[in-house]
């Protein structure tokens, strides 16, 4: 029997969460060390798994299936392909960074930091399970279950309005989740009717479901994912959660945990309900474009920096959903790649804003000004994170945005053109934010603001490095994603539109410009 890589990958953070929770109260530092250690070990395992897919070295990673609830035909079935690998990599990378970024956040509060770190690892385990699950019930269970630790993370450690934000977050997502529950059961009943009760994804994909039923099930799944992702008009919980949660938590929430929503769209909704997806694609594309523009416009109008980044995330999620429902190979690859890049860039933005907030004690844009004089390095990484957010070449975000838009252009020309407007707006909100906070006359309160500390450099450096490295060498990752996206689109049964030029050429053009 081969080594169960995937189960190990999930078990490590779960074990870490239990160990962290068992650290006696008052030993905060020890709890943090245990948690960060567990996250780092998980990162190593995740890296070993990635090697097989990125560089074609056989590490013995394969699909795993163990019996779980035989009465329902549900199993602990895990598998990894290019799409899930990209997100697994993002998750294992983000967790130690978020833990490190949270290092001092929890201390100022009177609350014990141990709960936050234990919950963070629990969410990591659940998120990884969601990305690897090949069983719809398993996916649903972790999809819903991760709400509870996230809810406590926002509600116990956030800002003054944290209760409101936490409850709103939970209720929105719970409503979506319950709609999905009805659809999951409906899907299961379809498999009962077909004679073989099962929650196993390939079995369910093989079912032939009539169009009307598909539509209802599609709605149930899509509602849950659209709230999670979040897509306009189901987005209103995100700005509140982003503003009230601690910066590290907000980074993890919108950078990693919310990706389960978009992952669900591409990995579950498209293959399970091909007819309904095809029929509904124009509607979803419109919603996605509205998200892009709406998020960007509202981001420009924000005075609260964390809320501003929350709105930029809505805009970026719009791009991801657009790429998925454009139903072209290029756009879907771009969307998956986008999920990773947006994760990295959002985490960087939230974390750097977190540094600013902890120094100044305020989230308001107006309370800052001229930061680049006392803290040039801090201003520098802020600018870098911002530029990654507006997808400046050659950062990795550029390529994904380019793939999404050019892929969409093949099928939905007007949508792609309007989405391009989103890029212009993103330049506006990022640069204006930079100008208002970092340049200009130095505000009295900002004088003497300390520059980046060693821990903070350790948090930001890997993010910056990744954004650059993946921007220059995207090929292993995009190839792996491409390989997985192909079969999904075949399942949907769409004809690939005539490409304007092969994808690889775009890449070269893009990076070389």
């Amino acid at each position, binding site marked *: 029997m081969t080594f169960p890589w995937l189960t190990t990958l999930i078990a490590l953070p779960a074990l870490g969460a239990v160990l962290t929770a068992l650290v006696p109260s008052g030993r905060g530092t020890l709890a943090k060390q245990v948690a960060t250690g567990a996250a780092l070990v998980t990162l190593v395992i995740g890296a070993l798994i990635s090697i097989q897919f990125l560089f074609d070295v056989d590490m013995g990673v394969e699909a795993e299936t163990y019996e779980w*609830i035989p009465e*329902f035909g549900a199993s602990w079935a895990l598998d990894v392909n290019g799409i899930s690998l990209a997100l697994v990599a993002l998750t294992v990378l983000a967790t130690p960074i978020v833990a490190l970024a949270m290092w001092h956040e929890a201390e100022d509060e009177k609350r014990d930091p141990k709960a936050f770190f234990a919950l963070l690892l629990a969410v990591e385990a659940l998120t990884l399970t969601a990305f690897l699950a090949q069983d719809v019930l398993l996916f649903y269970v972790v999809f819903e279950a991760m709400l509870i630790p996230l809810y406590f993370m926002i*509600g*116990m450690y956030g800002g003054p309005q944290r*209760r409101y934000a936490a409850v709103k977050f939970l209720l929105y997502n*719970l*409503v979506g989740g319950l*709609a999905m529950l009805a659809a999951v059961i409906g899907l299961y009943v379809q498999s009962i009717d077909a004679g073989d009760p099962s929650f196993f994804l390939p079995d369910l994909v093989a079912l032939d479901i009539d169009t009307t039923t598909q539509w209802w099930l599609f709605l149930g799944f899509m509602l849950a994912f659209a709230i999670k992702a979040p897509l306009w008009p189901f987005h209103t919980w995100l700005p509140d959660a982003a503003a009230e949660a601690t910066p590290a938590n907000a980074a993890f929430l919108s950078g990693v945990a919310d990706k389960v929503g978009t992952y669900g769209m591409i990995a579950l909704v498209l293959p399970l309900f091909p007819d309904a997806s095809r029929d509904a694609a124009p509607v979803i594309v419109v919603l996605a474009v509205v998200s892009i523009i709406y998020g960007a416009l509202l981001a420009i109008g924000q005075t609260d920096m964390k809320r501003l980044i929350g709105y930029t995330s809505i805009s970026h999620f719009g791009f991801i959903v657009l790429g998925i429902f454009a139903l072209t190979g290029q756009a879907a690859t771009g969307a998956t790649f986008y999920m990773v890049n947006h994760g990295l860039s959002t985490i960087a933005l939230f974390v750097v804003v977190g540094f600013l907030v902890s120094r100044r004690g305020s989230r308001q844009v107006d309370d800052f000004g001229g930061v680049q004089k006392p803290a040039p390095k801090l201003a520098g990484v802020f600018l870098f994170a911002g530029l990654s957010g507006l997808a400046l070449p050659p950062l990795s975000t550029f390529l994904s945005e380019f793939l999404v838009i050019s892929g969409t252009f093949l099928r939905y020309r007007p949508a792609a053109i309007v989405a391009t407007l989103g890029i212009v707006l993103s330049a506006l909100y990022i640069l204006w934010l930079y100008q208002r906070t970092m340049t200009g006359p130095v505000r009295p309160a900002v004088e003497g603001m300390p520059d980046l500390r060693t821990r903070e450099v350790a948090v930001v450096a890997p993010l910056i490095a990744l954004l650059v490295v993946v921007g220059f060498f995207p090929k292993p990752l995009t190839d792996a994603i491409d390989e997985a996206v192909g079969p999904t689109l075949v399942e949907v049964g769409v004809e690939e539109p005539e490409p304007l030029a092969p994808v690889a050429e775009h890449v070269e053009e893009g990076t070389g410009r």
Partner: protein
Amino acid sequence: MNAPTIEYAELAPLITIFGAAVIGVLIEAFVPRKVRHPVQVAVALLALVAALVQVILLAGTGMVAAVGAVAVDGPALFLQGTILVLAIISVAFFAERRLEAGGDAFAPAASTLPGSEEERILVRERMLQTEVYPLALFAVGGMLLFPAANDLLMLFIALEVMSLPLYLLCGMARRRRLLSQEAALKYFLLGAFSSAIFLFGMAFVYGYAGTLRFGEISEALTANIGQDGILLAGVGLMAVGLLFKVGAVPFHSWTPDVYQGAPTPVTGFMAACTKLAAFGAMVRLFYVAFGGMRTDWQPMLWAVAIATMLVGAVVALTQTDIKRMLAYSSIAHAGFVLTAMVAADQTATAAILFYLATYGIATLGAFAVVTLVRDSGGEATHLAKWAGLGRRSPVLAATFALFLLAFAGIPLTSGFVGKLSVFTAAIDGGAAPLVVVGVIASAIAAFFYVRVIVLMFFSDPAPEGPTVAVPSLWTAVGITLGAAATLLLGIVPGPLLDLAQQASLFVR
């Protein structure tokens, strides 16, 4: 002429419990007052454990005993086993003496006037109420018989044997005695009213079929053509009686009052065990006896299920008392079980059995936690007093949160698997719209469960808030078992689901 035979071996659990209850009455008469309490507790626990062992030994039996009056089959044994487990934990909660300075949750003597000199003397001398144990045993006996009854007469007798002791138990609270007595009065009057309606319905069913046996009624349904009016009236009236016992809308109005007024250990016992027994009886009656006319009663259950889920969830939102809130939540849960009942097949039976077991465990645990949060006036049941409990006593608050999450049906708790199985049964049985209503009701219900969690964990503690009492080992073990089962059945529900599936076949 042959004398009828009684299958003593198969009826052993019932005989054990009723025998022990009678012994309990004798103990009241002959054992000196000083040692009565430990003796009663010991007898009750021994009898319950013995009956549980007998039920386990009977597992797999499928027969009709006592000349066709009692069924010994999968659903009956499954429910009997579950009721016995819950009753054992309940008796442990009844016997809790650490919380009330040497007393338990019951008035030393129910007959003394509240506030009278007599009462004060009894409290001062640390006298304990011991009659509750035989009463509880009688109630448990009725509950064991109720889901096993295979003819109408036995069904009625079991209903009364189960209910009468419960009426009395409700009126015995040590604190807030008037409230408790009023709860007993209300429960008694409405309960007696509903049993009378049930009985009258029974008369009509008998008049239609000419027999009391479930199996023969089922045959009569296909043989007798015409006279449908009398049958429908009978079934409708019987349904009223049973829906009253399970607390379904519009026969639910007693639930919040009785849950609030009764001594909390009794509330937990009642909420968990009565619902199990009543649903068991209802499922058997409707599937075995009236299965042939399901198209006639399904629309009625549809309407009741929808009303129950929505009313339970919506009214719970406005509650400020934790016991009343749990009462409305139990109403909503009755609605969820009814969604599966509408499907009327074996999958539905298995789903109901599983749901009832998991619900019973979580309910008992939740009410036990309520007994521990106290201030100078006894239990602090007002929601506002629970603010900040998560800071004062994180373990207790987390346990209660776990039970609430199970009620809300969040994955990785037993409540989720239960909800999944009843909804699956409902959709499979062609009741998809009911499931949509169920999902909406779940979303509403989630709101008030979440509200309590917010209050416990994210609010600052009130300055004169309640303290969390340290319970005896028994209660601590009971709550721990409940929490562990709730979590474990959420992660690996396989074995219990399997058991429920094997136990889901009725004998006819």
